[in-house]
């Protein structure tokens, strides 16, 4: 069962039974980037050890029966700020308490400047089999403007070194559409990454998130507004360039070589269940979404005091669950399987079918092979389309 699920996840196709995931959050960064609104902090080095212990204790104390994990994801922040053995101890705790399928995808996020050649071996030894490297750009000027401290060479070397160390699955992250980036800059980044030949590429449009320093810079006119039309252009060039290089887009911002989609990612978009450990980590168990204490210090204190680390939860009602399934599923290139969707959420799609037909007539969605998906034109208008449908 888990094996089948794991294999299916790799195709990037929406699944009615997407498996089971575990997410671990490492909320530390050397420098916080001005566009970032993630739960992460600079200068908390002194907490690293205590944090690792706390996460391990939190995992051990998790209650209830749970299936073996088909995917594990260590995200941040910068997980690789911690030494590989520390990450390995957390992973071991997961194996012991939750169980990890033998062919599970086990990913760690890494920032190029934090991984020396030797780290990759360490991460492999710790049990990771997939690494996601934050390249962001291969143009020094753009990297500097984004507040990233690594150089293009360091980023590309990280991919090469990871492969040399024997990582079977390597992903590179890119950011596009920043106001400092020219079309040529973006092409340079894409071509450079394609040349390094990772198995998986994520390309995210830079988003001005509320409350970030970038939002203030834009609001006060010190950074120009981000033009969605420009981002659309960049996206189009990514699509054609990556497709020509043999990458398939399986989700709005994710491309992979055939069979190399991120299982953990697909699990999120298929409405799957997952546990989340660490500060601010989100989890989902059959319609109940919960999130843990946000501040690392408070999280550690709660674990030490033997308190519950869950800070909040919501039980998602039937209607909202259907909405989630749809909004997530439509982000996948394969779209949602109408039959399985209707079995899971009876009547929901049926009641909206006329809207779907209108959108299909407008060329925004397609219905074929029993699946509803965003059309090529519709992909970049996904939020508007989903708001009409959901």
């Amino acid at each position, binding site marked *: 069962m888990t094996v089948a699920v794991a294999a299916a996840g790799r195709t990037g196709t929406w699944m009615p039974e997407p498996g089971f995931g575990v997410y671990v959050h490492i909320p530390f960064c050397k420098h916080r980037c001005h566009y970032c609104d993630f739960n992460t902090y600079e200068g908390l080095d002194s907490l690293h050890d205590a944090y690792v212990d706390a996460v391990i204790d939190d995992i051990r104390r998790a209650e209830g029966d749970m299936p073996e994990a088909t995917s594990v994801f260590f995200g941040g922040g910068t997980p690789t700020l911690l030494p590989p053995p520390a990450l390995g101890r957390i992973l071991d705790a997961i194996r012991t308490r939750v169980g990890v399928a033998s062919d599970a995808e086990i990913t760690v996020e890494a920032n190029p400047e934090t991984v020396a050649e030797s780290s990759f071996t360490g991460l492999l030894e710790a049990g990771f089999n997939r690494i996601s490297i934050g390249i962001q750009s291969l143009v020094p000027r753009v990297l500097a403007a984004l507040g990233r401290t690594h150089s293009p060479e360091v980023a590309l070397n990280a991919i090469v070194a990871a492969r040399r160390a024997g990582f079977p699955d390597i992903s590179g992250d890119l950011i596009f559409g920043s106001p400092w980036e020219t079309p040529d800059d973006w092409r340079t980044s894409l071509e450079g990454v394609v040349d390094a030949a990772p198995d998986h590429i994520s390309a995210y449009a830079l988003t001005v998130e509320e409350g970030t320093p970038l939002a203030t810079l834009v609001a006060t006119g010190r950074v120009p507004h981000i033009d969605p039309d420009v981002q*659309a252009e960049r996206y189009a060039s990514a699509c054609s360039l990556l497709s020509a290089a043999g990458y398939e887009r399986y989700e*709005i911002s994710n491309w992979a070589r055939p069979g190399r989609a991120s299982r953990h990612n697909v699990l999120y978009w298929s409405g799957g269940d997952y546990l*989340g450990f660490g500060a601010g980590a989100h989890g989902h168990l059959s319609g109940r979404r919960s999130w843990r204490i946000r501040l690392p210090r408070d999280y550690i204190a709660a674990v030490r005091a033997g308190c519950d680390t869950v800070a909040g939860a919501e039980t998602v009602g039937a209607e909202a669950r259907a*909405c*989630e399934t749809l909004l997530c599923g439509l982000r996948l290139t394969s779209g949602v399987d109408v039959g399985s969707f209707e079995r899971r959420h009876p009547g929901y799609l049926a009641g909206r079918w006329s809207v779907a037909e209108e959108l299909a007539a407008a060329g925004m969605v397609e219905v074929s092979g029993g699946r509803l998906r965003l059309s090529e034109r519709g992909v*970049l208008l996904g*939020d508007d389309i989903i*708001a009409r449908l959901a």
Partner: protein
Amino acid sequence: MDQAHQRAIAVIAHIDHGKSTLSDRLLQLTGTVSDRDMREQFLDRMDLERERGITIKAAAVRMAYRAADGDTYQINLIDTPGHVDFNYEVSRSLAACDGVLLLVDAAQGIEAQTLTNLYLALDAGLEIIPVLNKIDLPAAQPDKYADEIASLLGCARDDIHRISAKTGEGVPALLEVIVEKIPPPSGNVNAPLRALVFDSVYDAYRGVIAYVRVVDGALSAREPIRFMATAFEGEADEIGIMAPEARPVKRLETGEVGYVIAGVKEVGLAKVGDTVTHAGREGASEALHGYREPKPMVFAGIYPINGDDFPLLRDALDKLKLNDAALVYEPESSGALGFGFRCGFLGLLHMEIVRERLEREFDLELIATAPSVGYELEMTDGVKKLIRNPTDMPDRSKINDISEPYVSVMIVTPSEYVGTIMGLCQERRGELKEMHYLSPERVELRYHVPLGEIIFDFFDQLKSRTKGYASLDYEPVGMFSSELVRVDVLLNGQPVDAFSTIVHRDKSYDYGKKMTDRLRKLIPRQMFDVPIQAAIGSRIIARETVRAKRKDVTAKCYGGDITRKRKLIEKQKEGKKRMKQIGTVEVPQTAFIEALKIDTDVKEPG
């Protein structure tokens, strides 16, 4: 009191020339209001009036004045509305007087409004007492403006009284002049009762309070009376005078001014200009001259922003109508704005006041279409038609002729702006009728201009082009034929009724361009290109395009936080619910509101 000791006067003045302050001073000097009770501008009752610094409703106050000759005189001070929209009401207030004080700011000179009202008073044959106010101001130029008034009235400079209503200087002497120069009333004591209604106000507890001047005969409490124009009959439950608070009396004699309460449920039954007489055989056979039905000149659709408020809007209008005989309204529906009312107003100020009262007193959020005037159509089959809503205009091929209302516009301006004003009036299809130098520095211009051209920002333009120095007044002069067309605005091929308008053919292109350009900036980008067109019939005269949006999708979802993503989508869904659907185009309500504010600029979307 015998007629020989009665005086009824009104004050004609421009806004801010000190009418209210002078009234206050007169009340104080005659002891009508004690110093302790004195509050500024006693006669302006409503909040709204106080805020706008204008007088909407006339009031009348009786003062007892012991003159130098030792006799006590009854002076009735009748307040007049100070704005062009209430021209007719001013004329009725003046008809209730025997003379007027022409009050002019000694630092500013006579203004257009004052001139119009002065001409009304002269036409009515009233005695005019010219008064220069604010002589205490450092900027006052009493000699200069005295000359101006003297040349207007054909009197000597010294005949013009100089006062400061603020300090009281010259006001006691003015009281003597009033007694001396204003003639007593000349009504027939023995004739059947005829009392002129010069104002009527609705009171929630008492019903309508009609303010009257007894022209002939006398009225006693409890007598049956009749309003001659509306034929409404009732009993004079209470009659009284204002001094300045209401004080019931047993009898109003010939020449006296007071109020009548007779169980009238709405002001429309006791209209300004009507004649009150006794009911039955004792009643007068002929009403006083000059009555006219209130005639709405400006029309606009008023819609609740929240469609559920339609019944509330209806109730609110019904209530306002009790106190506003000039307000007319009928339900209408608009594809763009939902259900609302087409309302008729005396003018722009009247419209603004009604709208403000609806929002303030009834807590309604409203959206109004661009104001328009009423048009008279002569159809090819000879039938005449009146339209008040541009969307009612039939196909041009079925129309023989269209007429629109014209007004006679009076502008008083420093002479250096004459060229500018002529340019403005030219743009607005005006025709110069008269030009008269009040003095070497100041000119009175009279134009005939279509009212439809005045109701779009004419006043604002005049003010800004003359740095605020020119003043304006106008009065209707009739309907005249014009080359008018209806311009429609289409979104993605669908006409939006709220934006249809009737304009002169020569201006249709400008209007179309302006409106399409505004909408291009106001309508959010959609999934597809949205053409915005302006058209006369099937002919497109202007076109803009709102280009399709290209990207509207969240790049990523952080660490499995699907909740946040769902909430974003739910918010987006809520936003869609507040959109109006015009064909396949979603238009936020704010876009309609902004688009209809024709005289403000719209910024390019960010």
